[in-house]
């Protein structure tokens, strides 16, 4: 498996290919549409992420020492964003995730280009991923 940094650099590179934010959104929409389906009956309140205007459910499990994430959202761009995070962090060990600074998100300029409410949502998603890593290491 490629290192976390390599995968993140690939994401940054992919994003930099699009000049226009509309095209970046188009890419996120594609990611959102292709995200593995999340069971309806597991969209429970304890999986719901606070701080998002659209609803986001994020679930995780630890398997063979690695974290695996599943998520869904009722808004497709948000779903694309969470899909991007999952593709980067799923299958990583808790210590890899805990040791990461998540700075690739700044590099793709995602946070500044979201509405403040959506940026808060992004922060909450990252917090949840970090928390999952911290809890798994206990």
């Amino acid at each position, binding site marked *: 498996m490629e290192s976390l940094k390599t995968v993140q650099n690939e994401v940054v590179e992919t994003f930099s290919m699009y000049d226009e*934010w509309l095209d970046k959104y188009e890419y996120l929409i594609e990611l959102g549409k292709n995200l593995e389906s999340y069971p309806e009956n597991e969209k429970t309140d304890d999986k719901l992420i606070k701080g998002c205007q659209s609803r986001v459910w994020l679930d995780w499990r630890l398997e063979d020492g690695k974290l695996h994430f599943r998520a869904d959202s009722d808004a497709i761009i948000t779903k694309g964003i969470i899909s991007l995070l999952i593709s980067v962090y799923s299958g990583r060990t808790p210590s890899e995730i805990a040791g990461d600074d998540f700075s690739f998100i700044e590099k793709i300029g995602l946070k500044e280009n979201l509405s403040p409410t959506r940026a808060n949502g992004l922060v909450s998603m990252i917090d949840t991923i970090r928390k999952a890593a911290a809890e798994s290491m206990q």
Partner: protein
Amino acid sequence: MMIVMRTQELRNLFPILNTKVYGRNLVYFDNAATSQRPQSVIDLMTSIALNSNANIHRAVHYLANEATVMYESTRDAVKDFIGASSREEIVFTSGTTASINLVAYSFGEAFIGEGDEVIVSEAEHHSDIVPWQIVCQRKRAVLKVIPVDDNGVLQTDKLEGLINDRTRIVAVTHISNVLGLVNPIEEIVRISHSHGVPVLVDGAQGIVHQKVNVQKSDVDFYAFSGHKMYSATGTGVLYGKRKWLDAMPPFMGGGEMIDTVKFSGTTFAPLPEKFEAGTQNFNAVPTLKEGMKLAELMREAELESQSAEAFSMMYDFLSGDERIRLYGVPCGTTRKVPVFSFTVKGVHHEDLALILDKMGIAVRSGQMCAEPLMDRFGVTGMLRVSLAPYNTAEEVEYFKKSLNKAIDMLA
């Protein structure tokens, strides 16, 4: 040709409308959240800061006098603007929310007790729900709700059945910030008054689109903000009939709201100072004069052909597309103002707002501070476009294309 000039003339008053966002021309369709500020208001604020900044009422010096005259003459202008009978009935606040909170608290203190009832409508902004919930909780009173029908039209015929001898006040919006429908205020007042119940009207949207005459409509309280009406933010008005304001205790203490202060007890200033505790927003309040002048011009312009054309183009588009559900559909004699809230089948409102934003179009998405109304229609949020007379038919045309493109991207 004359008419085209007119819209362009209006646009020229608002420098921000020439702004480019993401390299595109700004299309500002979020007027119901806040209107833009004309150059005259911007100039006035600067001029006050440069030439007449002083705290009002207290001091005897030149600048204080200037500032006081500007502030108090605005009160006279507001009185005339809404047809009040006296200047003592005009209280300056920080905005509609503050005005309603003032009434909910002070009227509540004086007139609402355990087991009493307050009536609001299902289409209220949170600012005309939560203050009443707070007073109802404090006083162990009951909040009742006038419903809207599937078109969003207020079911005024249900009001009679909701009022009883425990009803203390009816608080309704003049125009819902979501539905854009003009409520029959005079009828609501007639029904309520026939039971001796006063009426508060949330005029945050109403004052922008409708000529208001508080004596003619006989409302007991009318609340509105300056910032939706081309004036500075942090300005607001509470009109209250003198008989109520006199009977209500002060909302906040301190500053000019006193007559004499002793540790043995304080007596309060007469109206309207009784309700204007603390340092007032004297730098911004005078901009209401400019705002009111412009509001009158804008209300007229709204009915003229070019604005009406942009308005009806938007209405036809949003009501005639099977993918779109428009909320707030006028029926019979109900008038609609250019505030359009809608959902698109299978597409999240926030996705649409985000893409429209990158196309240069400012719209609102979410619950619009009207969560009970969202629940009423079974949605988590809506997309809202709200037009002002400075918006053009070309902008609506661009919006139509952009929305279609956004839907294609997302569906």
